[in-house]
C-alpha cells in the first residue's frame, strides 16, 4: 500500500481532514498541539498518516520531536509515496513556513508534494480571497483549496493524491527556498496572494479584548471553571436519577421472574447492587466531556492557558500545563500525553507527576457517593448553587491545590538547564458544533464504562462470592470475606472505618470505581430485599461517621489507584523508578492526610 503523510502547522485541520478521508475518529480541537502521536488510517487503498502539527523542521517540543523523527525516518527509508502539506488559509504565512521547508526537504529526497489549502470556508465567510492559481504557479506545487469542515474540495484532493501516486514525477517540488529565505518568502507570498489579515483577525481581536480583559478576564475564567464543576453535579442529577430508576425497575422485573435462590441473590446483589451502582455515574462523564469539549472547540483553552500562566509559574509550572491539568479531570492518561506540548522538559516532568492528583472521572463515583452520604441536598442563592455541587467544587479544588504544592516543592528540588520560555500561537475563536461534540461525549462515557466495567464485574463477583457464602443473604458479618477483612481492620481503624471499607479501599487499588461497586455489593447482601432506596441511604443507615467520610474523601483525592496511569508515567517520564516513588509517595500522603482529617473533624464535632 502507498503511504501518504499529512503534515503541516498545528491547528491547521490535519486531523479533521484525516477523519473525513479515513472515517476514523482522531481527536480534533481548536488549539495548537492536539495530536501528539502518529496515527495511520486509509482510504481507497491508500495509507494516510496523521502527524502532530509542527511549526518547523527544527523541533522545539516533545510532540514535534516525535513527529519529526518519524517524518524523517519515513522519508529517508523510502516508506513514503507522497506528502500532503496542509495550509491554514487564515494563517497562510505561518503555514507556508513549514510548507516551504517541506518542499526543500522533499526535493532533496525525491518525494512528491501537494498543498491542501484548508479553511477556505472561513476565508469566504470573511468575504476575503486567496489567489490560489498564482500561488500555485509561483510555488510550482499543486495547491488544492478545501474545507475539511464543510467537506468541500475533498474529491478533488483525493483525485490529486491518486494522480500524484500514479505519476510522482509531475509532483516533485520545483522551486525551493532555504534557511532565512523561507521566512522572507512566506511573508511576501502571504502579502501578495493571501487574505487581508486585518479582516481575518478582526473578530478574534475583538473577543480577546473581552476574554482577556485585565479585570473581567480573570473573573470570567473563575466563573467558567465554577460553572463547569457545578454542572457536573447539578445537570447530571436528573440523568443519574433516570439511570437509577431504570436500574431499580429492571431489578424488580428480574427478581419477580427469577426463582428464589443463589442465582437470584447474585443478580440482585452483585449485578444490580454492585455493577449497577457504578453505571449511575456515566451521565456525569458525558457532561464533563461535553463542557470541556466546548472549551476546546471554541478556542477558549488557549486564552485560559494565558490567564493561568502567571499563577502557575509561581508553582514552577507554565500556562502550558493548564490544558493537561484540565483534561486530567476526565482522565489522567490522555492528559499525560498532552503534556508533550510543554516545551520545558522540567515543567513537563512536574506536570506529568502531578496530573494524577486531578480529580479524574474514576474518582467521580466515589466523590458523588460520599457527598450524597455526607452533605444535605440543599440549595442556596435561590437554587442556583447547591451544597453538593459546592462540595464537589471544593474537592476538585483540593486536588488542584495539592498538585500545586507538590509542583512547587518538586520545582525546587529538580535541577534543570536554562529554562524554556512561554510562546503560544493563538487560535481563532470558533463556534463549537453540536453533533461532533455529542458524539465525542458519548464515546467518552462509553469508554469510561467499557474500560472499568469488566474490572468492576470481576471484583464484584469475587467480593460477592466471598461475602455471600457460607451463610447467604443478610449475614455478611459471618461471611468468609468478613473473616479475611478482620486482618485489615488495624490499618483502617485509625480512620474510624470498619473492615467493609477496608476491603473496598483495597479492592479499589485495581480501579477507583471499584469502591462503589464493592460497597454496593455489601449492602446488597446485607439489606437482602429492601435495598431499593439506593446505596447512599444504606450507608447513612449503617452510620458512617462524618469524620470517616471526610477522611475517605481526602484519601481518594490523593491516592494514585490506577495501574494504567502508572504504566503511562513510566513511559512518558522515561524513568522506571518514577511510578514507584509516585505511587508510594501519594499513598502515604493520602493516608496521613486522611488520618489528620479524621481527627480534626472528630475534634470539632
Amino acid at each position, binding site marked *: 500500500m502507498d503511504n501518504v503523510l499529512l503534515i503541516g502547522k498545528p491547528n491547521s485541520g490535519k486531523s479533521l481532514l484525516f477523519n473525513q478521508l479515513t472515517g476514523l475518529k482522531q481527536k480534533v480541537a481548536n488549539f495548537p498541539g492536539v495530536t501528539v502521536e502518529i496515527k495511520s488510517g486509509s482510504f481507497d487503498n491508500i495509507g494516510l498518516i496523521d502527524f502532530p502539527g509542527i*511549526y*518547523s523542521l*527544527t523541533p*522545539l517540543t516533545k510532540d514535534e520531536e516525535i513527529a519529526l523523527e518519524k517524518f524523517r525516518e519515513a522519508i529517508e527509508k523510502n516508506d513514503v509515496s507522497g506528502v500532503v502539506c496542509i495550509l491554514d488559509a*487564515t*494563517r*497562510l*504565512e*505561518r503555514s507556508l*513556513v513549514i510548507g516551504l521547508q517541506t518542499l526543500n526537504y522533499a526535493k532533496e529526497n525525491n518525494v512528491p508534494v501537494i498543498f491542501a489549502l484548508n479553511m477556505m470556508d472561513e476565508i469566504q465567510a470573511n468575504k476575503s480571497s486567496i489567489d490560489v492559481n498564482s500561488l500555485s504557479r509561483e510555488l510550482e506545487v499543486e495547491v488544492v483549496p478545501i474545507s475539511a469542515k464543510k467537506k468541500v474540495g475533498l474529491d478533488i484532493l483525493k483525485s490529486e493524491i491518486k494522480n500524484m501516486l500514479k505519476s510522482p514525477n509531475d509532483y516533485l517540488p520545483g522551486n525551493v527556498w532555504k534557511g*532565512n529565505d523561507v*521566512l*522572507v518568502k*512566506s*511573508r511576501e507570498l*502571504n502579502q501578495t496572494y*493571501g487574505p487581508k*489579515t486585518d479582516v*481575518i*483577525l478582526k473578530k*478574534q*481581536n475583538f473577543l*480577546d*479584548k473581552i476574554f*482577556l*480583559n*485585565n*479585570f473581567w*478576564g*480573570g473573573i470570567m*475564567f473563575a466563573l467558567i471553571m465554577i460553572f463547569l464543576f457545578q454542572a457536573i453535579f447539578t445537570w447530571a442529577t436528573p440523568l443519574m436519577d433516570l439511570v437509577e430508576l431504570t436500574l431499580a425497575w429492571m431489578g424488580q422485573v428480574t427478581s419477580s421472574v427469577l426463582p428464589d435462590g443463589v442465582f437470584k441473590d447474585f443478580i440482585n446483589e452483585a449485578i444490580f447492587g454492585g455493577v449497577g451502582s457504578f453505571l449511575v455515574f456515566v451521565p456525569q462523564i458525558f457532561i464533563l466531556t461535553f463542557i470541556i469539549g466546548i472549551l476546546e472547540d471554541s478556542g477558549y483553552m488557549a486564552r485560559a492557558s*494565558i*490567564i493561568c*500562566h*502567571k*499563577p502557575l*509559574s509561581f508553582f514552577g509550572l*507554565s*500556562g502550558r500545563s493548564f490544558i493537561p491539568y484540565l483534561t486530567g479531570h476526565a482522565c489522567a492518561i490522555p492528559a499525560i500525553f498532552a503534556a508533550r506540548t510543554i516545551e520545558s522538559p522540567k515543567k513537563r516532568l512536574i506536570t506529568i507527576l502531578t496530573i494524577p492528583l486531578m480529580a479524574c472521572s474514576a474518582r467521580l463515583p466515589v466523590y458523588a457517593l460520599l457527598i450524597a452520604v455526607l452533605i444535605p441536598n440543599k440549595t442556596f442563592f435561590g437554587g442556583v448553587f447547591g451544597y453538593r455541587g459546592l462540595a464537589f467544587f471544593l474537592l476538585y479544588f483540593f486536588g488542584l491545590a495539592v498538585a500545586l504544592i507538590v509542583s512547587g516543592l518538586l520545582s525546587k528540588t529538580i535541577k534543570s538547564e*536554562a*529554562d*524554556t*520560555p*512561554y*510562546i*503560544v*500561537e*493563538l487560535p481563532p475563536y470558533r463556534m463549537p458544533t453540536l453533533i461532533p461534540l455529542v458524539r465525542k461525549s458519548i464515546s467518552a462515557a462509553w469508554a469510561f464504562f467499557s474500560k472499568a466495567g469488566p474490572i468492576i464485574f470481576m471484583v464484584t463477583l469475587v467480593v460477592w462470592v466471598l461475602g455471600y457464602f457460607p451463610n447467604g443473604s443478610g449475614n455478611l458479618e459471618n461471611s468468609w470475606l468478613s473473616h479475611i477483612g478482620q486482618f485489615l481492620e488495624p490499618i483502617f481503624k485509625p480512620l474510624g472505618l470498619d473492615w467493609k471499607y477496608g476491603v473496598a479501599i483495597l479492592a479499589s487499588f485495581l480501579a477507583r470505581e471499584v469502591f462503589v461497586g464493592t460497597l454496593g455489593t455489601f449492602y446488597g447482601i446485607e439489606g437482602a430485599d429492601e435495598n431499593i432506596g439506593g446505596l447512599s441511604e444504606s450507608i447513612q443507615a449503617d452510620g458512617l461517621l462524618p469524620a470517616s467520610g471526610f477522611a475517605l474523601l481526602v484519601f481518594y483525592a490523593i491516592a494514585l489507584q490506577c495501574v494504567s496511569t502508572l504504566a503511562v508515567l513510566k513511559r512518558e517520564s522515561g524513568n522506571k523508578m518514577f511510578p514507584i516513588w509516585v505511587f508510594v509517595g501519594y499513598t502515604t500522603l493520602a493516608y496521613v492526610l486522611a488520618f489528620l482529617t479524621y481527627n480534626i473533624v472528630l475534634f470539632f464535632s
Partner: protein
Amino acid sequence: MKRPNILWELKEKSQAIIEDLGEKIPAKFQLRLGELGLLKSQPITCLKKTPFNGPILYQVGDGVISLAREVAENIYITRKKNG
C-alpha cells in the same frame, strides 16, 4: 547612553519595528521566534496585555502570538512615531 526600547514595554495598540533578539534568548528559540514571524526590521503590534501581568498578545505577520515576560523583555524594538 539611552536605554534600548524593549518589546515588553510597548503600549497596547501601538506598533514598533523589531531591532534585535537579545542574547539571553537561546539560539533554538531565536530560530522558532523567527519562524513564528518575529523577524528583524519587521513590524510588530502589541494587541493586548493580559490579566495578572501574563503573557502579552502580539501580532506579527498574519498570526497572533503570546510572549511571556522573559521573552518579550529580551526583544529590542524601535518605536514608531505615530503608534
